[in-house]
């Protein structure tokens, strides 16, 4: 410390202190403040990239400003996307439902056409049009490690709100007019959550006032648990219920036993006899 104390009256000491101070403040500033500055530019870039993707891939049906297109007869060619929020885009595009392959009763789930990066760009763009449900944070969509209480509570929510259409194990179900509630197997927690908050296609919206984010996580936890568990009792019929069992009873059950009955009936008696020749 002698070095510092002897040089403290040096004419350049003030300059050095000032320099050190500037470096510290500049370093701190660069560590903390510029973050938001770059985020702003990234967001703007993302939104612009999303807009470009939108113009190429979506505007044909949804309109150049996502305002929707009406048919001449007043029908809906492509709905307005203003206010649907990032969650809706992430669900529709992320599960491959959008872009539509063809106009049918319902958009089926298929291989996504956009990369996750592009999906987030599209979502970012649509989110700027008007406020809407955002993509949920992982805190609510990652159900791994949920406790038994949470899972069984999720089961209650699931049976009350979801099974009527999606079936008790999420095997899906029929709806009028060729529409259907899709299977829930292999759907990510994020997409299940997004479906609940945005209500895609035939599905009603379950907003946070109806089912809180924590309860949504519980529902996801229940779905993931029952789908991961083994089919106790042997091979299952895919959760399709008694129809499959009845078919099996007649075709394999009665059919198989009739084959055996035919075999038994076709064989006469064989009595062991001592043979003697004369």
């Amino acid at each position, binding site marked *: 410390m002698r070095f510092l104390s002897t040089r403290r009256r040096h004419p350049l000491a003030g300059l050095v202190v000032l320099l050190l101070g500037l470096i510290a403040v500049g370093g701190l500033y660069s560590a903390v403040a510029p973050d938001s500055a770059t985020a702003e530019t990234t967001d703007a870039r993302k939104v612009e990239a999303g807009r470009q993707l939108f113009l190429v891939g979506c505007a044909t049906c949804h309109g150049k400003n996502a305002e929707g297109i009406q048919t001449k007869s007043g029908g809906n060619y492509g709905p307005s996307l203003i206010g649907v929020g990032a969650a809706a885009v992430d669900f529709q595009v992320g599960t491959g439902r959008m872009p539509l392959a063809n106009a049918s009763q319902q958009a089926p789930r298929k291989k996504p056409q956009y990369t996750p990066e592009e999906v987030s760009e599209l979502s970012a763009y649509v989110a700027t049009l008007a406020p809407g449900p955002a993509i949920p944070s992982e805190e609510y969509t990652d159900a791994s490690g949920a406790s038994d209480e949470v899972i*069984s509570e999720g089961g209650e929510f699931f049976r009350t709100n979801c099974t009527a259409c999606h079936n008790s194990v999420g095997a*899906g179900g029929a709806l009028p007019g*060729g529409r259907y509630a899709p299977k829930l197997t292999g759907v990510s927690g994020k997409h299940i959550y997004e479906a609940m908050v945005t209500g895609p296609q035939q599905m009603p919206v379950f907003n946070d006032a109806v089912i809180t984010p924590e309860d949504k996580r519980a529902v996801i936890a229940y779905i993931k648990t029952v789908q991961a568990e083994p*089919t106790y009792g042997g*091979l299952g019929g895919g959760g399709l219920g*008694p129809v499959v*069992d009845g078919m099996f009873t007649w075709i394999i059950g009665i059919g198989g036993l009739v084959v055996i009955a035919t075999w038994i009936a076709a064989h006469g008696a064989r009595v062991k006899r001592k043979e003697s020749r004369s």
Partner: protein
Amino acid sequence: MTQITTDTPLEESAFGKKAAGPVGWLDSRLGLAKAGKGLVRKVFPDHWSFFLGEIALYSFIVLLLTGVFLTFWYVPSMEEVTYTGSYAPLRGLEMSKAYASTLDISFDIRGGLLMRQIHHWAAMLFIASMIAHMLRVFFTGAYRKPREVNWLIGVGLFSLALIEGFAGYSLPDDLLSGTGLRFVDGLIRSIPIIGSYAEFFVFGGEYPGELIIPRLYMAHILLVPAILLGLITAHLLLLVYHKHTQWPGPGRTENNVVGYPVLPVYAAKAGGFFFVVFGFIVLVSATLQLNPVWSYGPYNPSEVTAGSQPDWYMGWVEGAVRIMPNWETTILGWTFSWNVFIPAVVLLTALFGLLAAYPFVERWVTKDDREHHLLQRPRNAPVRTGLGVAGMTAYGVLWIAGGNDVIATQFHMDIYTITWLCRIGFFVAPVIAFVVTKRICISLQRQDTETLLHGYETGVLERSPDGGYSERHAPLPANVAYTVSARDEVRVIEAPEDTDEHGVRAPGGLKARLHARASRFYHEDVAEKPTRHEVEEAAHHHADHDGHALEPGARDEFQGISETGVPHQH
């Protein structure tokens, strides 16, 4: 050189010597030899279709055995408890004791899940084999005199089995079985005027109440099985008393039974088949999941799951309700729910009513009062076979309607389209099925006549010197010819003249005309059986005709076997 075979008498065989002591001891105390003598010498004919009823009998035995096991742990109570068993996704939930104990059987009782599945699969097979057996009896005319009463017992067994199956389906008190119970609740309530009172009577108050599970349990393990057991016993006693029916064939008449005696042959065949059926059910139950009650969750009247179906034997009622238009009328404050009453209550009653009435209706039409122990080939009763197939078609259409949601999702179809197809199909398809089946039967009869008179096609083609081709025909072997021609000649019974010679209207003219109409409907198109004279004439024709038929001299050259499998006979 002749060959002589000798049997060792049972008493002299090693087994006989060993068994003589205990058997004699029992016989001198119980008199079994005298009582059992008739039974062990009882002869049963062999045919695969005679085993269908046995499948039902053996499934019933399996049901009794596994059912006893399940009663050890099942608690028939609707009292609410908190589940604390092994199945984590349901732990901590409020549920009825019935459901909790079913979960315990499935997850915490050793072998419980297997026993549950054996019980359930056996039930599925029990009713399926009953229906298959019933169809066999129907299509072969085995219900004719003297077996009408046994047919009625069979109809009773069938209806009770449905009730028994449904009661069992409801006992676990899971979401699916509760939904089924709700269905039956609606069915009861749809009965005009007394419906809601009947519901309160059955459920002990408004649905679901707290009594229905204990009541169904009593019905399922005591009342219905006891009646089933009694009726099965009566069914079998009548079978022994009447003797088993047999297919026509050489040496088989209305007065004998050709087959094997119970001991040693039939006991071995039937006993062996019991183990095959038992083993088959256990194999299926060990490898295929059935009714995973844990995945449905506890019953709550406000919840439901997509794909809710009854077990297959109630599927046709479910289907009828699904395709029924929504008709409802209110008269003087009473609501008449035709939308449920017609497809459920009326249809169920109609099925059992028609089944029970059929033998008597047919008897009235044919005026046939003879005893029948020889079966009819289905083709030889074209109208009956047609009616049976029409009934099966209607049943099948309702089945499809009952699974319309599963068909819609699995085959990417519109559920309303399926519903409309079933609505139309229910009325149209049976008519088409009747006409087509009847025509097929008559064609087969005509083909029988054809082969009787002109021989069967050998498949050997000959070219004549002038280049023409013809197929060789060979006369049917005598035993085949006998079997094919063993059928009754039926005639339309015409109505007597409306008025007698004095111009007075005959009494009962309308009834007679009605009967004549029915008789024509039954017998008009039936192909006529060739007479003895015609057959002999044709045989003569075979013997001295040209290349069209097989000449006697050419017989030795012919080595072929026809595609109908009738071997050439020397």
